[in-house]
C-alpha cells in the first residue's frame, strides 16, 4: 500500500491528524464498553479488540523529515521470527506505517487488538490463554502483573538494537519496575486541566482552583473523568494530599467533596473531547492526547499541567508470560524501540516518547509543543499512580459511592 507521504510536518498536518483521530485513547473506554453493551443486546459477538477499532487507518500520517523512513537495520541481528504476533494496546497508538514496515522486514504478521483501559487488558490477560504476545499496560498495573507473573522478564540479549543510554532517565528504572526487568516505556503523558479560555475568563493553574470553580463559577459546565486514579487523585492533590492517598480519613474528605460536586458537574465521563468542543463543558480534567487535539482545533482551548501537582503516567511494552509467539514479540520490540521507528509512533499518536533519541528526530511542531512535551520543571511535582492505588478496594469503593450518590 503506497500512500503518498508528506515530507514535512506542519501545524496544519497535526491539526488534520487530530481531526481524523478524534477518538482519543481513554474515550475509547466508553465507546468500546458501549459497543459491547450494544452487541450484547443485539446478540452479536463481543467487539473487544480489533473489531471495535475499525476506525479508518489514517492515510495522511505524515512522518517528519528526519524520520521519514522506518529503519531497516533491525533484521540484521534480531532473532528469527515468523508467524503471527498479537499486540494488545490502546486505540490509535501505533503508526500503521511502522507496523507495516516491521511486517515487511520480519515476515511477522501483527494482529493489533485495542483496549480502552489497562483494567480491560488485565481482565483479558488474567483470564489466561488470551493469545496476547505484547501488551502495553500503564505504570500503575505493572507491579501487580509482575507479582502475579502475568508478564515475563525481558531478556535484553534478544534486543540487540536496544541502547539504554538513549532513554530519558525520568522514565526509566522507576519504582514500578526497578531496572526495567519486565517493561520498556513506550509513550508517556500527563493528567491536566483543559479549558476554553473564551468562557473560563481566569487562568486555571491548580487542582485546588479547578475543584473550587468547577462547582461554583462554572457549575453545570465542568467534567471529571470516569477513572478513580485520575479523578480522586487530582482531587486529592487539590486538597493537599498525595495523588496516591489510600488513607481512610483523607478519602472520606475527598468523597464528601466530590459527592457534593457531582450534581453540579456537566458529566463524569472519559469521553471529554466532544463536550469540550461543543462548549457543553468549559472546564475538564483531561489527558495529554485530549489536550493536544482540542487545542489544535479550537484556538481558545488550553491544557495546563497543574502547579500543585497531579498525575504523570507511562505506558510500557511488556511480553505476556503465556505469549504464544515470544520470538516475534522480541523481534517487534527490537524493531519498534529503535529511535527512527519510535519517532514514527509519536508522530502518529502525538504522545511524548521516553526515548530521547526518538524525541530529537521529531519535527519541531511536535517536540516544541508544550502540551505534548511540557517543560521539565513542570513535571517535578507530578506523581506516578502506584499499584496500591490501582488495587485499593477502598479507592474503588469510594469512587463507586461517588458515582452512585444522588
Amino acid at each position: 500500500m503506497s500512500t503518498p507521504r508528506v515530507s514535512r510536518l506542519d501545524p496544519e498536518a497535526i491539526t488534520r491528524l487530530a481531526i481524523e483521530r478524534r477518538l482519543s485513547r481513554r474515550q475509547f473506554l466508553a465507546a468500546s464498553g458501549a459497543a459491547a453493551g450494544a452487541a450484547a443486546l443485539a446478540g452479536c459477538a463481543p467487539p473487544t479488540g480489533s473489531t471495535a477499532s475499525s476506525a479508518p487507518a489514517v492515510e495522511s500520517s505524515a512522518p517528519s523529515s528526519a524520520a521519514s523512513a522506518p529503519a531497516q537495520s533491525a533484521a540484521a541481528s534480531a532473532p528469527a521470527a515468523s508467524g503471527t504476533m498479537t499486540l494488545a494496546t490502546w486505540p490509535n497508538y501505533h503508526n500503521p506505517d511502522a507496523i507495516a514496515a516491521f511486517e515487511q522486514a520480519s515476515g511477522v504478521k501483527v494482529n493489533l487488538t485495542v483496549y480502552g483501559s489497562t483494567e480491560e487488558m488485565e481482565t483479558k490477560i488474567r483470564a489466561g490463554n488470551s493469545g496476547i504476545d505484547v501488551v502495553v499496560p500503564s505504570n500503575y498495573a505493572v507491579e501487580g502483573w509482575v507479582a502475579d507473573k502475568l508478564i515475563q522478564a525481558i531478556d535484553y540479549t534478544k534486543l540487540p538494537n536496544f541502547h539504554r543510554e538513549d532513554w530519558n532517565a525520568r522514565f526509566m528504572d522507576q519504582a514500578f519496575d526497578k531496572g526495567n526487568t519486565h517493561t520498556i516505556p513506550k509513550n508517556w503523558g500527563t493528567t491536566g486541566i483543559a479549558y476554553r479560555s473564551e468562557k473560563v475568563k481566569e487562568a486555571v493553574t491548580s487542582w485546588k482552583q479547578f475543584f473550587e470553580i468547577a462547582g461554583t463559577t462554572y457549575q453545570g459546565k465542568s467534567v471529571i473523568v470516569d477513572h478513580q486514579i485520575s479523578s480522586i487523585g487530582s482531587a486529592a492533590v487539590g486538597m493537599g494530599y498525595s495523588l496516591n492517598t489510600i488513607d481512610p480519613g483523607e478519602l472520606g474528605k475527598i468523597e464528601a467533596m466530590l459527592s457534593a460536586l457531582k450534581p453540579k458537574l456537566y458529566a463524569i465521563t472519559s469521553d471529554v473531547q466532544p463536550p469540550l468542543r461543543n462548549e457543553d463543558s468549559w472546564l475538564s480534567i483531561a489527558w495529554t492526547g485530549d489536550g493536544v487535539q482540542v487545542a489544535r482545533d479550537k484556538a481558545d482551548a488550553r491544557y495546563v499541567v497543574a502547579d500543585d501537582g497531579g498525575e504523570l503516567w507511562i505506558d510500557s511494552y511488556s511480553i505476556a508470560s503465556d505469549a504464544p509467539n515470544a520470538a516475534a514479540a522480541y523481534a517487534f520490540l527490537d524493531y519498534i524501540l529503535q529511535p527512527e521507528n519510535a519517532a514514527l509512533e509519536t508522530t502518529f499518536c502525538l504522545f511524548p516518547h521516553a526515548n530521547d533519541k526518538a524525541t530529537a528526530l521529531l519535527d519541531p511542531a511536535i517536540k516544541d509543543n508544550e502540551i505534548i512535551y511540557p517543560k521539565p520543571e513542570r513535571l517535578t511535582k507530578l506523581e506516578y499512580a502506584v499499584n496500591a492505588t490501582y488495587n485499593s478496594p477502598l479507592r474503588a469503593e469510594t469512587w463507586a459511592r461517588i458515582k452512585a450518590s444522588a
Partner: protein
Amino acid sequence: MRQPRRPGAGWLLLPSGFWYALFLVAPLVVLAVISLGVRSPNGGYSPALTAEQYASLATRFTPFTNTIVLAFAGTIMCLLVGFPLAYVLATRAGSWKTVLMALIVIPLWTSFLIRTYAWMFILGSNGVPKVLEAFGFDVQLLNTPFAVLLGIVYNYLPLMALPIYVSLERLDRSFIEASRDLGAGPFATFRQITVPLSAPGVVSGCLLVFIPVMGEYLIPVLLGGGKTYFLGNALADLFLQSRNWPFGAALGSAFVAFMLLVVGVYAWVVRRLTDQGRESSLL
C-alpha cells in the same frame, strides 16, 4: 387435550439442551462459584467460601433504585406512547400499515450505539437547547435523568408497540361490532372489549421493555453523562475498574434472582389474564 408423546422427541431436544447447558447453566454455575470467593489483592478472583460479597450488596442500593425507578418510568412511558401507536396501526392505518410498520422496524436495523450517540448531538447544547434558547428558555437536556428516560423510550418503543399491535390485530372484530350493537358506546367498548383482549400483548410488551432496561448500560453512560448510575454501570465498573470479580458476580447473581422473580410475577399475571380472556370469549 394432550397429545401422546412421540418417541424420538428427546433426541430433537438434544441440540438445544446442549446449548442451554453449555451457555446458560454452566456460566451461571461459574457466576455462583465466583460470587462465594474473595477479591485477590491484585484484583480478580481468589477461591474462598464466604457470603461476605452478598452481605455488602446493600452498598449498591442506590444504583438499584435508580434503575428500578427509571425502568418503571420508561416502561410506562413506552406503554402510553406505544398503545395508541399500535392501536392506530392495527385499526386505522389502512393501506399505510406496511409503510408505518417499516418506519418502526427499520431503525432497529441500525446499531443501538449509533442511534443513541445521535441523541447526544440532538440534546447537546448545539441541538434542541439552542432552538429553545431563541425562545428565551435556558435548559440543559443532555446528561439529565430526562435524557436517559427519553433514550429508553426511543430505543425500546418498538418492543412495546409490536406485541400490542399483534394482539390488537388478532382481535376478533365481531366482538366490537357485537358490543356496539348491544348499545355500548365507543369508550365502553374500548374499555370492556379492546383493553382486556389486548392485555396479553401489553404485558409481554411491558416485560420486553422492562427486562432489558433493567440491564441497561449504554444509555446512562451516553445520555446520562455518568451521573445517572444504573445497576449495569455498577456491574461494569466492578469488573472493569475495581476488578472485584466476586462482588460483581454476587451483584450479578442477585440481579438474576430478582429478574426471575419479575418473570415469575409476569407468568402469573399472564395466566390470570388469559384465563379471563377465555372466559370472556366464552360469554
